[in-house]
């Protein structure tokens, strides 16, 4: 079995050998494997036969054998054509493999997204998730803490990586965060626990950025912590935008990470937008970045609007900015709104 076997079913190999044979005045030309087994063309038994090696990565994978009357250049030419076909077949197989891996990764990601939002009294949620073709690894989640609807956790996260490894880590991180939020009293402590598990127990070289908010449904008190993630944006009903800043490094990179925890209160009519860098790093056809300033201005203009309106406005603006350019990174948005009284 050699790499050449994969080409045998290809009709163009037979035509190539037939053409070469015709060019050599009907002389016999064939291809054999390194053990001498005939793979294609006609067998040449002459001791004076011309032999030209077919190599791939410096290894002889076959020989072009021609009768004495075949010009040496011609058998070399046939060998070259076979080498080019082998390299081409390999590139194609690699592309198919990468495409398949990305597709599996996307399926895992899609399966991780919440199917519905919790039915929290007075609160509305909206989300957008648009996976990129090449790069993946975004996640969002909304769930009641310990299954009770008095507190709702919001998570958005971005794994630095793509394909199956990123999707598997994402599934892992989602479960770890969910368990940590249910068991730790505070978001910062939940991030600290997840970081410790990723650093000490997991065999992944990838990192995760995350923003974690826990909302008290009755009072609107929000406790939050960040791990190297873009600050969520609060749109106050009065028309002001406030980034929710908090210190905390990426998850999975540093053994001794500490995370700052902060609080804010969402009044009726206020909304918070969580997003990943797929939004701010979106590029126009002229290669400009969408950027944080443009997002701040847009969210500022949407103060007092419902969650769904804000999510759609951002999606529309990023899509318009991007024009025909293919999205390079996942585009993920999660908006929560405390409904006006």
């Amino acid at each position, binding site marked *: 079995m050699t790499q050449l076997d994969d080409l045998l079913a290809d009709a163009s190999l037979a035509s190539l050998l037939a053409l070469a044979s015709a060019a050599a005045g009907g002389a016999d030309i064939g291809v054999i494997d390194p053990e001498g087994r005939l793979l294609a063309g006609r067998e040449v038994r002459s001791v004076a036969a011309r032999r030209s090696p077919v190599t791939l990565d410096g290894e002889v994978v076959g020989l072009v054998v021609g009768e004495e009357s075949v010009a040496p250049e011609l058998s070399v030419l046939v060998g070259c054509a076979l080498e080019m076909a082998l390299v081409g077949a390999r590139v194609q197989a690699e592309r198919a493999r990468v495409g398949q891996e990305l597709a599996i990764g996307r399926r895992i990601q899609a399966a991780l997204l919440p199917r519905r939002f919790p039915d929290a009294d007075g609160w509305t949620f909206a989300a957008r998730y648009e996976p990129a073709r*090449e*790069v993946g690894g975004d996640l969002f989640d909304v769930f009641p803490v310990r299954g009770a609807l008095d507190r709702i956790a919001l998570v958005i996260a*971005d794994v*630095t*990586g*793509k*394909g*199956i*490894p990123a999707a*598997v880590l994402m599934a892992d991180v989602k479960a770890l965060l969910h368990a940590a939020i249910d068991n730790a009293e505070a978001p910062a402590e939940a991030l600290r626990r997840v970081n410790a598990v990723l*650093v*000490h127990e*997991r*065999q*992944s*070289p*990838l*990192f995760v*950025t995350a923003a974690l908010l826990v909302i008290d449904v009755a009072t609107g008190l929000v406790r939050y912590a960040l791990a*190297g*993630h*873009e600050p969520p944006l609060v749109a106050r009903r009065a028309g002001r935008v406030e980034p929710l800043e908090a210190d*905390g*490094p*990426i998850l999975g*990179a*540093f*053994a*001794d*990470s500490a995370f700052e925890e902060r609080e804010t209160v969402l009044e009726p009519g206020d909304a918070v937008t969580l997003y990943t*860098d797929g939004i701010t*790093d979106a590029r126009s056809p002229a290669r400009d*970045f969408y950027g944080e300033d443009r997002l701040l201005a847009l969210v500022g203009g949407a103060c007092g609007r419902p969650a769904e309106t804000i999510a759609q406005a951002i999606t529309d603006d990023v899509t318009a900015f991007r024009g025909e350019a293919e999205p390079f*990174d996942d585009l993920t948005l999660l908006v929560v709104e405390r409904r006006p009284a």
Partner: protein
Amino acid sequence: MNTTIDRVSPEVAVLALDGELDASNYRELITTGSSLYADGARSLILDLSNLAYMSSSGIVALHSLALIFRGQLPPDPEAGWAAIHAVSADTAAGEAADQVRLVNPTPAIDSVLERTGLRRILPVYPDRNAAIAG
């Protein structure tokens, strides 16, 4: 992205990055750093003056370079769960951790370094001479 190597001494290499560091080229940067380390360099100065953009893959590359220049095994960023984890890559051990130094990042890149926590393991200097002097 273009890289220019300036070997100021057998132990010190300055690597200037020009363009954009992202998923398409971050592994090359890790490879370049690995070869400099294998060639005897023990201090790496990354001049970011002309680096216009750095995606999250750039974070992986910088973190990997910090590990490589501490003599720890280079992680393979795409080997997934089979790879060696980049554990304890911080100053917790109490030793000086400035084998890799950064020069003059743009404000946007500097804020990513700050936000992700990378500045804790990669000190930032205003210019090359200050970085070489340490």
